[in-house]
């Protein structure tokens, strides 16, 4: 009884001891914040990675792909037929994406994935990631009415430009930039644009690769090319140029949008250079040996935004059949693919499914992996980072433990005479020891308790706090341009909070063992005489 009473009284009256646990509180709070942020980051990343990849992926060893024969389909069905919740075939290949902004072309390396949206939607939440598609809709390759209207507007304008250009070639002397102003009713010839070199004059509609040596072209030549082919104006006699091209793509949001800080408001705005309805140029290689370069134009149907910047700035989804056709993967009545994505009824069976598929499919042609295997290095990096941070942060709590140790020694010295009195009144050495051990435990409880509360509040309001710190320091703490996510995502794991709190309390108790033992060993007579 006296132990708990004295322990509580010491807790209330010895503020110096409370000061010693501030570092413990901060350590606990920091561990909770860091773990929650890392966990949130990891969870979000896993969700998004998995959303894009599906549970199990069968990949061909060659980028040329393999035809999906009946045998292969049957093998898969026989091996894991009961486990399949959804399955889709894709062609995945590296490519260059070229988009035009103003008079400039921008090219970027991308991963081009040919998909069938309907089946793709059965293995992952594709619609959720498409900007202009409702979450419940099944994604398709049709342009939305808004995109069509936008396309009609710009193709009409561009067509007019081409016609005027062909009609009135620009004089050599003039040195003006291309102007896409509204057409005006005038009998005067339009001012002709002039380009510094051929590369700038390339038309967005110019599909046909030019022979080598032609890029130092005559500046008076029609910059849109003489024979416009697979573009909005291909077969212009037969088809409406405003109708979308046979190649359709969902483009990663990060590939065509650029965040910038508005100097007036200080907010991060996004500048978008491609909208659904625009055309882009894609260059890749054909299947077969040796791979030959091939390129085609495609109409942007939607923007893909998974909020995972690595994907958003590298993925372009294309209609599967068109990509197969452009890469020459259709032959003998069979279409080749490079991967089969499989969603399982029970994702936890992924490892078992992988081993079954490995047995069923020829290893020379296919390799089978779970999405986690495929993203192994990224996931492992996050885990390693998290583990190292935990070790470092736990050291902070350990340092706090030494603070408690030092202050406890001071308190036991200060309480020497009281310890003598307690012994004179019949308290046992164990009783004295347990006063200080429970005092340590109580301090640990308070320290880690407050730490847990502070940590959880910090996690709850982390984005507000980030904004406040950004406002105070004038420097962005969490820059969306650098990280994968638009805002700091967190996930609080109750077991993590529990173990961090327990760990802190154990350290507090361990730190109080030495002083408590010392107090218990005080000689009562010496203690009573202590001045």
């Amino acid at each position, binding site marked *: 009884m006296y132990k708990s009473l004295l322990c509580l*009284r010491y807790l209330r009256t010895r503020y110096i001891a409370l000061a010693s646990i501030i570092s413990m509180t901060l350590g606990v709070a920091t561990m909770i914040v860091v773990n929650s942020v890392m966990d949130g980051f990891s969870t979000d990343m896993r969700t998004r990675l998995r959303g894009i990849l599906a549970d199990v992926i069968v990949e061909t060893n060659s980028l040329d792909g393999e035809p999906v024969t009946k045998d292969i389909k049957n093998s898969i069905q026989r091996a894991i037929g009961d486990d399949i919740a959804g399955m889709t075939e894709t062609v995945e290949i590296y490519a260059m994406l070229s988009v035009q902004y103003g008079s400039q072309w921008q090219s970027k390396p991308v991963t081009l994935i040919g998909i069938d949206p309907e089946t793709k939607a059965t293995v992952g939440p594709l619609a959720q990631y498409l900007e202009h598609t409702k979450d419940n809709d099944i994604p398709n390759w049709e342009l939305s009415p808004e995109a069509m209207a936008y396309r009609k507007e710009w193709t009409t304008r561009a067509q007019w430009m081409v016609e005027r250009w062909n009609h009135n070639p620009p004089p050599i002397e003039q040195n003006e930039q291309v102007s896409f102003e509204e057409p005006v009713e005038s009998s005067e010839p339009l001012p002709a644009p002039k380009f510094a070199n051929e590369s700038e004059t390339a038309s967005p509609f110019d599909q046909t690769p030019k022979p080598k040596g032609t890029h130092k072209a005559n500046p008076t030549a029609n910059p849109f090319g003489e024979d416009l082919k697979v573009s909005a104006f291909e077969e212009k006699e037969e088809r409406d140029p405003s109708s979308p091209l046979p190649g359709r793509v969902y483009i990663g949001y990060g590939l065509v949008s650029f965040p910038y800080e508005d100097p007036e408001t200080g907010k991060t705005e996004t500048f978008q250079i491609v909208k659904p309805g625009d055309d882009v140029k894609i260059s890749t290689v054909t299947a077969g040996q040796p791979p030959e370069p091939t390129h085609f134009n495609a109409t942007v149907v939607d923007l893909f935004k998974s909020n995972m910047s690595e994907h958003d700035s590298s993925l372009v989804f294309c209609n599967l059949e068109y990509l197969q056709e452009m890469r020459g993967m259709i032959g003998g009545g069979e279409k080749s693919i490079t991967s089969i994505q499989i969603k399982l009824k029970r994702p936890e069976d992924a490892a078992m499914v992988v081993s079954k598929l490995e047995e069923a499919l020829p290893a020379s042609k296919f390799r089978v992996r779970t999405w986690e295997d495929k993203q192994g290095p990224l996931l492992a990096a996050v885990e390693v980072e998290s583990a190292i941070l935990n070790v470092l942060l736990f050291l902070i709590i350990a340092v706090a433990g030494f603070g408690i140790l030092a202050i406890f020694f001071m308190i036991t010295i200060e309480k020497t005479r009281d310890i003598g009195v307690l012994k004179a009144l019949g308290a*046992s050495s164990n009783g004295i020891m347990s006063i200080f051990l429970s005092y340590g435990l109580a301090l640990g409880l308070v320290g880690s308790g407050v730490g847990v509360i502070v940590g959880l509040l910090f996690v709850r309001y982390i984005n507000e706090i980030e904004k406040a710190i950004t406002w105070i320091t004038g420097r962005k703490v969490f820059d969306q341009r650098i990280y994968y996510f638009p805002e700091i995502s967190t996930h609080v794991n109750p077991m993590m909070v529990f173990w961090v709190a327990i760990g802190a309390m154990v350290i507090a108790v361990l730190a109080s063992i030495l002083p408590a033992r010392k107090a218990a060993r005080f000689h*009562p*007579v010496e203690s*009573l005489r202590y001045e």
Partner: protein
Amino acid sequence: MTETLSMPHPQLSAIAIEKAYRKDKHKVPVLRGIDVDVQKAEFLSIVGQSGSGKSTLMHLFGLLDSPDIGEIQLEGQRIDDLPDHARDQIRNRVFGFIFQFYHLLPELNLLENVLSPLMIRYSTWEYWKQKKKFREDALEIIEKVGLSHRIKHRPSEMSGGEMQRAAIARALIAKPQILLADEPTGNLDSSTGKEIMNLLTNLNEQEQLTIIMVTHDNSIAAQAHRTVRLLEGQIEVLGKSHATSVPA
């Protein structure tokens, strides 16, 4: 007195006690062969100059320390060689301690200080079961020492006399058989000291409580039934070769 002397065993005995303190390699003898018997309901005072060993003798009686040679006996049973937990129990149940500097626990109020021996004796559960009774007992004792108006006060809020009375109340709550008082008036003015002595005398006379009091003040010691005078660790020889006591 005659009746008590006729008992087969004295209530408390020190038999051939020797005690020395060691500082580095030096041995400082404090008690050099002490024999003292204390009878039940006796009020014994131990006097002597500073360093004569009187406080050490009292600590040995109260099992706060162990003799190098000799025995402490309670009712004829040796108690100085008992294991620690048994010694703790004897200190809690048999002895009540009063110190010169009161030694109240500063974090506890008067009532809690008085109740502390019972808190030490009982487990939390047992204490809570009897809490009401203990509190009533404590209030009764506090009233007896005249501190009813101070029960919620901390030691730092009380005067020296009040603190000593509180210490006496604390010593009495466990209903001890023997009260060990180490210079109980040493830190008090003469009138307050007199009050404390009256309190102790009354306890001895009315409740037949055995009291062993250490003091260096002969006038205080004179109020006891009997005085043992120590000189350099031995009972002072007063005409006899081995006088164990002088009449009060």
